């Protein structure tokens, strides 16, 4: 049964080819940036890498064009998504590697996967002196990955794709705002582009107030917005948001990454006039509760150790890292080592939980999502009611997410399964970190950051870390961002192909 659903190689290759072609096309943006700033080496790098992607993607599109209208099964749609993210990573790492800013091709791949998955952990060397072209590429990858690159490529490069919705779900965005996946993807992109214009202007002004020159303030505003909106965490400077030493910049970034972490279905509801949805949606309620509780715990922990002496530094350092971790953004206003050396166990515990929970489903954020926390909480509430009240007094439990949803057993089971998969991945990542010789606290912090696609680092993630850990983190980022199912489908697809070949010979 499974084999029949994920067995057709050529249609899968055709759709992956479209995505690779799309990734070649968007390399024109950093190429033009480099041209404008006269960074000729980087121009050549993008010409080479862009041509390779366009040539290979274009060849797949032309050679397999007859599969254009192929009706993909659920499994095949998911294989396309998982495959496109992995093969896309190999192509997008080429300009990084050619730039000479990485010690190995694996490090380049790590940063691409970190960008695609909006994680924000980086292995790049000498980040403070990167060319504008490479910085544009880093932040563009985050922006594109956050909104969903497979559906982006399909919605703008192909008309009338039968399997678009399956690929859209494969990118862990399972809520349909419009009648079909292509118009939903376009709407997501329209929302993002409107906010991109507003956010860049606001951060441009904030940058100039902070003392940057006009063009640097513009570029930094654009990049920081792209990263904030995608809850990505990449920043043009190694000190992240701390570099700007500006409370205005910090407040503006919090606003944009908070809004960026909202569910796209919630954006759609609010922007079409249903503003009350913000106050009654289970995700926003659950997010507000967990932010409040975890900030209280972290503040208590920081208070015990007298880490920050006054309310302003507690807010700008303590709350900023907490909200950045909870929305899975990863911007920092402290140095990485300060987490492990200064914060203490209680605050670290709170931020690890925040990173694992993450923000909203069908958004750019990672983690196991507030929606599932809300579902599990309500399931407990329902079961406790069943135990203590007479059966006649227990009504059907509902949750509100855009519309009222009955809390049925399959909804609860699905929430538990995904949360379980995240916890298993987190545990495995922590264990491998410890096997590589890192202490428990450091391994757990970094593993939570990778599993939640956050990007906060306590200093473990460096180019010098063991290869096995780099590969583990790449797989964890990929698994967590696509919420496991697509990659499991790809695994089944590969196993099926290998099995068939073994039987043949």
């Amino acid at each position, binding site marked *: 049964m499974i084999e029949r659903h994920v067995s057709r190689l050529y249609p899968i290759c055709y759709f992956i080819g479209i995505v690779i072609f799309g990734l070649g096309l968007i390399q024109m943006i950093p190429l033009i940036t480099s041209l404008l700033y006269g960074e000729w080496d980087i121009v050549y790098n993008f010409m080479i890498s862009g041509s390779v992607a366009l040539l290979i993607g274009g060849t797949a599109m032309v050679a397999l064009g007859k599969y254009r209208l192929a009706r993909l099964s659920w499994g095949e749609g998911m294989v396309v998504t998982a495959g496109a993210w992995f093969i896309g990573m190999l192509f997008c790492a080429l300009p990084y590697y050619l730039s000479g800013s990485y010690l190995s091709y694996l490090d380049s791949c790590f940063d691409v996967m970190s960008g695609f998955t909006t994680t924000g952990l980086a292995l790049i060397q000498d980040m403070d002196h990167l060319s504008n072209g490479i910085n544009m590429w880093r932040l563009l990858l985050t922006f594109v990955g956050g909104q969903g690159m497979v559906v982006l490529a399909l919605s703008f490069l192909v008309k009338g794709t039968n399997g678009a919705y399956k690929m859209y779900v494969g990118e862990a965005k399972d809520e349909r705002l419009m009648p079909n996946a292509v118009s939903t993807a376009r709407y997501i992109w329209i929302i993002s582009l*409107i*906010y991109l214009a*507003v956010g860049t202007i606001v951060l441009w002004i904030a940058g100039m107030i902070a003392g940057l020159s006009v063009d640097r303030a513009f570029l930094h505003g654009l990049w920081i917005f792209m990263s904030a909106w995608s809850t990505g965490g990449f920043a043009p400077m190694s000190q992240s948001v701390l570099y700007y030493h500006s409370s205005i910049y910090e*407040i503006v970034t*919090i*606003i944009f990454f*908070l*809004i960026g972490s*909202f569910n796209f279905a919630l*954006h759609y509801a*609010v*922007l*079409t*006039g249903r*503003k009350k949805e*913000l106050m009654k949606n289970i995700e*926003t309620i659950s997010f*507000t509760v967990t*932010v*409040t509780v975890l*900030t*209280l715990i972290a*503040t*208590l922990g*920081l*208070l015990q150790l007298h880490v*920050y*002496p*006054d*309310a*302003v*530094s*507690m*807010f700008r350092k*303590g*709350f900023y890292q*907490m*909200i950045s971790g909870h929305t899975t953004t990863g911007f920092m206003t402290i140095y990485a080592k300060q987490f492990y050396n200064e914060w203490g166990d209680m605050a670290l515990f709170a931020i690890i939980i925040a990173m694992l929970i993450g923000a909203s489903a069908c958004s750019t954020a990672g983690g196991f999502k507030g929606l599932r926390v809300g579902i599990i909480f309500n399931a407990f509430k329902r079961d406790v009611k069943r135990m203590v009240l007479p059966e006649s007094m227990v009504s059907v439990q509902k949750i509100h997410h855009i519309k009222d949803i009955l809390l049925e057993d399959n909804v609860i089971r699905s929430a538990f399964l995904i949360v379980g998969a995240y916890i298993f991945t987190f545990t495995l990542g922590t264990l491998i970190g410890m096997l590589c010789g890192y202490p428990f606290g450091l391994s757990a912090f970094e593993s939570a950051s990778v599993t939640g696609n956050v990007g906060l680092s306590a200093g473990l993630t460096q180019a010098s870390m063991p290869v096995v850990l780099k590969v583990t983190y790449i797989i964890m980022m990929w698994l967590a961002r696509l919420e496991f199912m697509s990659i499991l489908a790809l695994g089944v697809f590969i196993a099926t192909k290998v099995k068939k070949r073994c039987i043949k010979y």
Partner: protein
Amino acid sequence: MRKIFLKGIFGVAAEIIFAGGLILIGFLISLLGGL
């Protein structure tokens, strides 16, 4: 068209106010911690 545009503007304002509310919660907790 004008109605859709206005709904969008008010929607963006509502989202910013909601985010502002969360920041206020963070600031109040920090204020308690800093006292």
